[in-house]
């Protein structure tokens, strides 16, 4: 079942939408050299055809609204529908960013209170809400750390990143002009403290860490690591992808992290939108506060103001004040959950991960000792004799009505299968998922060719990605045009 492109469905008989006429006397035409010569080949479809097209496309998508999405490191939890309604309230959605701040006191108060809540959750002093996504938050934090060192007259050129880190960590560091130095993981999956010691020097601006790390394990020696890093004058950066494990349990700021990014589209239930928009606020400790992006929201005599007079600020990291619509959703969620609810959410997330992990004992390889935090990494290498790979398990799960876990990440585990169940899946769903994986592993042993042929019942079978990359077709072209 596939769907024609809008461009292929387009037909000249489709009536254009009815729109107002200008109703004024025609103005002089613009000079010809400024005008477009050939109109854009946008599709021509009637409104009913447009709606049907997108409804059909929607039916080709798997989503968290439909079933379990155990995608490790992505925290695919239920997206409360109340959040959506809140963000669409005209009092939020219909605001111009350049309105007089006196006319947007409610919006500024929301941002101010969200900042305070995130400070409490992460254990930091201030938070910028400006970054648009997690990677954008990483980069923003590193820019602040860079500015901090420069303000002290130190030009530090290196950033240390674990070999198990998200790819965005080294990419964000490189984008900031840093040389990336990799630190190894010890056999238990945690940072190799010996290797870290060898790599620390006064050239190092920061160490980037995720805790729990990408194996879902808590970095037990975090206080020791923090001391080592700070002794060299470097800063400790927290990748907040895994914050869902920790709310109300412990706080990155207390562990010694100086800068912390948070993904509102993970931990704080704003929907992922098929690839964004997200939101990646960054919290910092006091000595990084002067470098926060501007403007910040301040409270003065009971009124809220936008403060752009911040002489040490790194400037702006995007236009306006961040993805405000996502801030409204996260604020609404935090209001509904409260401190007690968020704490229970993290505890349930940890419980669910350990439960699924337990159910998979003897089914997949579990290379690291538990307990895990909110996610765990298994390995499909036990199926190597049958020639079955992590990818085959992923496709087998799709065939059985589940989304697939993250596969082949982290890179340090061969045939990695990374499962993050979150707190919003019932025990029955978790059981059904474990049973499905068991069934797939069984099939791998009895009929591996069948498993390699799955999925069979989805809109398309396995797509030839190698050929797609070798001969990229990145757009539709009108008939007779090449490329």
């Amino acid at each position, binding site marked *: 079942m596939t769907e024609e492109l809008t461009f292929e469905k387009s037909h000249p008989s489709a009536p254009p939408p009815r729109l107002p006429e200008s109703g004024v006397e025609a103005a002089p035409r613009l000079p010809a050299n400024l005008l477009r010569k050939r109109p*854009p080949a946008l599709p021509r479809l009637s409104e009913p055809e447009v709606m049907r097209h997108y409804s059909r496309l929607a039916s*080709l998508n798997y989503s968290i609204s439909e079933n379990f999405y155990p995608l490790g490191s992505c925290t695919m939890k239920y997206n409360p529908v109340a959040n959506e309604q809140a963000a669409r309230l005209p009092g939020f959605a219909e605001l111009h960013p350049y309105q007089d701040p006196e006319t947007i006191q409610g919006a500024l108060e929301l941002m101010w209170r969200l900042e305070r809540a995130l400070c409490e959750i992460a254990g930091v002093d201030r938070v910028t809400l400006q970054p648009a996504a997690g990677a954008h938050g990483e980069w923003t934090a590193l820019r602040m750390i860079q500015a901090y060192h420069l303000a002290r007259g130190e030009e530090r050129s290196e950033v240390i990143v674990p070999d198990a880190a998200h790819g965005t960590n080294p990419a964000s560091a490189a984008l900031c002009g840093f040389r990336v130095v990799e630190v190894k993981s010890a056999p238990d999956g945690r940072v190799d403290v010996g290797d870290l010691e060898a790599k620390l020097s006064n050239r190092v601006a920061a160490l980037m860490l995720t805790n729990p790390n990408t194996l879902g394990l*808590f970095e037990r020696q975090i206080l020791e690591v923090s001391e080592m890093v700070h002794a060299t004058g470097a800063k400790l950066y927290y990748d907040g992808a895994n914050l869902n494990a920790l709310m109300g349990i412990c706080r990155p700021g207390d562990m010694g992290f100086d800068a912390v990014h948070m993904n509102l589209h993970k931990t704080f239930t704003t929907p992922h939108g*098929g690839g964004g928009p997200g939101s990646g606020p960054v919290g910092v400790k006091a000595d990084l506060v002067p470098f926060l992006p501007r403007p910040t929201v301040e409270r003065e005599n009971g009124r809220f103001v936008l403060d752009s007079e911040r002489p040490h600020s790194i400037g702006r990291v995007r236009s306006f004040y961040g993805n405000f619509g996502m801030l409204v959703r996260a604020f609404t969620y935090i*209001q509904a959950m409260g401190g007690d609810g968020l704490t229970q959410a993290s505890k349930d997330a940890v419980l669910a991960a350990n439960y699924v992990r337990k159910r998979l004992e003897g089914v997949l390889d579990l290379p690291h000792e538990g*307990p895990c935090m909110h996610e765990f990494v298994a390995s499909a290498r036990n199926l190597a004799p049958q020639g079955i790979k992590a990818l085959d398990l992923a496709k087998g799960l799709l065939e059985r009505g589940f989304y697939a876990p993250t596969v082949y990440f982290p890179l340090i585990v061969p045939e990695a299968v990374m499962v993050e169940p979150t707190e919003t899946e019932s025990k029955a769903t978790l059981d059904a998922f474990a049973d499905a994986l068991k069934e797939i592993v069984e099939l791998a042993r009895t009929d591996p060719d069948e498993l390699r042929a799955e999925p069979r019942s989805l*809109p*398309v079978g396995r797509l030839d*990605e190698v050929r797609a990359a070798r001969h990229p077709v990145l757009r539709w072209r009108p008939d007779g045009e090449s490329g």
Partner: protein
Amino acid sequence: MPYLVHSEEDRRAMLAELGARSAEELLADVPGQLRVRGLELPPGLSELETMSSVRRLAARNRTYEDRFWFRGGGVYKRFIPTAVDAVISKPEFYTAYTPYQPEASQGTLQAVFEYQTLIAELTALDVANASLYDGATAVAEAAMMAVVHTGRPEVAVHPYLHPEYLEVLRCYGQGRGFEVRQGLEQVGERTAAVVFQQPTFLGVLEDPQALTAHAHHHGALAVACVDPISLALLAPPGEYGADVAVGEGQQLGLAPSLGGPHLGFIACRQDLTRRLPGRLVGEAYDAAGRRGFVLTLTAREQHIRRAKATSNICTNHSLCALAASVYLTYMGPEGLRQVAEVSYQRAHALADRLSQLPGVELALPDQPFLNEFPVRMFHVEQSLKRLEAAGILGGLPIARWYPEMEDVVLFCCTEVNDLDAIDRLVEVLGQA
């Protein structure tokens, strides 16, 4: 508690399966000295109470009737067809993740493929990516493409690029190590890119062909930051030879929402494809010969290339790109042209009317404009206050960015500003 699913009995059963006596045992790796006993946040609320408190905050913001918005400066009030919100409210789209498993994500992937085509068509360039955060970061990403492509250390920027875009570009430049120069006088062999906005932040039209030729004469890339609706009428970057086109897509069906989430778009010439930041969707086939779509050319991206990636972008603005696709598909070529044309005509009628008021004159009377234009007027602050009292969001004073233009206000007109609203605006301003 809202959104949690387990009963105490479920929790006990799961713990029993784990052989654990309590949830605490699972947290044994967290050093005791780091443990906090909950969060100092107010307790949770029912949905009724939550929504009531959120609504109270919303009610403390001033909103204006659509037709009384005369303020732009990067965020505009446009007519949004109901179809747009109906589509992006479908949970199959808005609650899906980045389409890592293509067989289960064809809806998102095909929508992005169509979006890439729409943007490429609008800009008359060869290829567009799956989306960026906003117009400002799109400018920065284009500049970084040019710096890597040319190996040159400077980027020259037209004096009236959106001031916030310029500030963001500088922030990226300071990190990445390239110089941002405002003004085009010093373009030369150190210049990686010439960045200009059409129309400029002041709303007026430059000669993009000349700016592009200026860039190319010095071996730099021409980066055009464009208004997507304007491209129904104005020459698109591909027609005047620009190498990269970027811009802000908010006008394509997205609510103003205090400035975000909106949509950054980027398109380029074929030979720059592998320098593009972010996601790209391409056509692929399964063993049965069925056409589908996949994320492709991922060897540019952070999860494969890590420190050597073209950009760090992971989550982008996919749902906003979907909104733009629905908008452009709904409009079609004639609809988009009509939107641009009505805005052009009404803005010119408004400019005429305003310039007849005593104490008001066009600030750049000799330069052509599309639907936003600078006006010089007496008593800027009082005038805007008077408009506000009449329920009108007046033009944007720009002195905060350009102190030399302390009496200049940027007015904007789109298809939402009907003739009554224009009359009312002129009437209130004329009451001085």
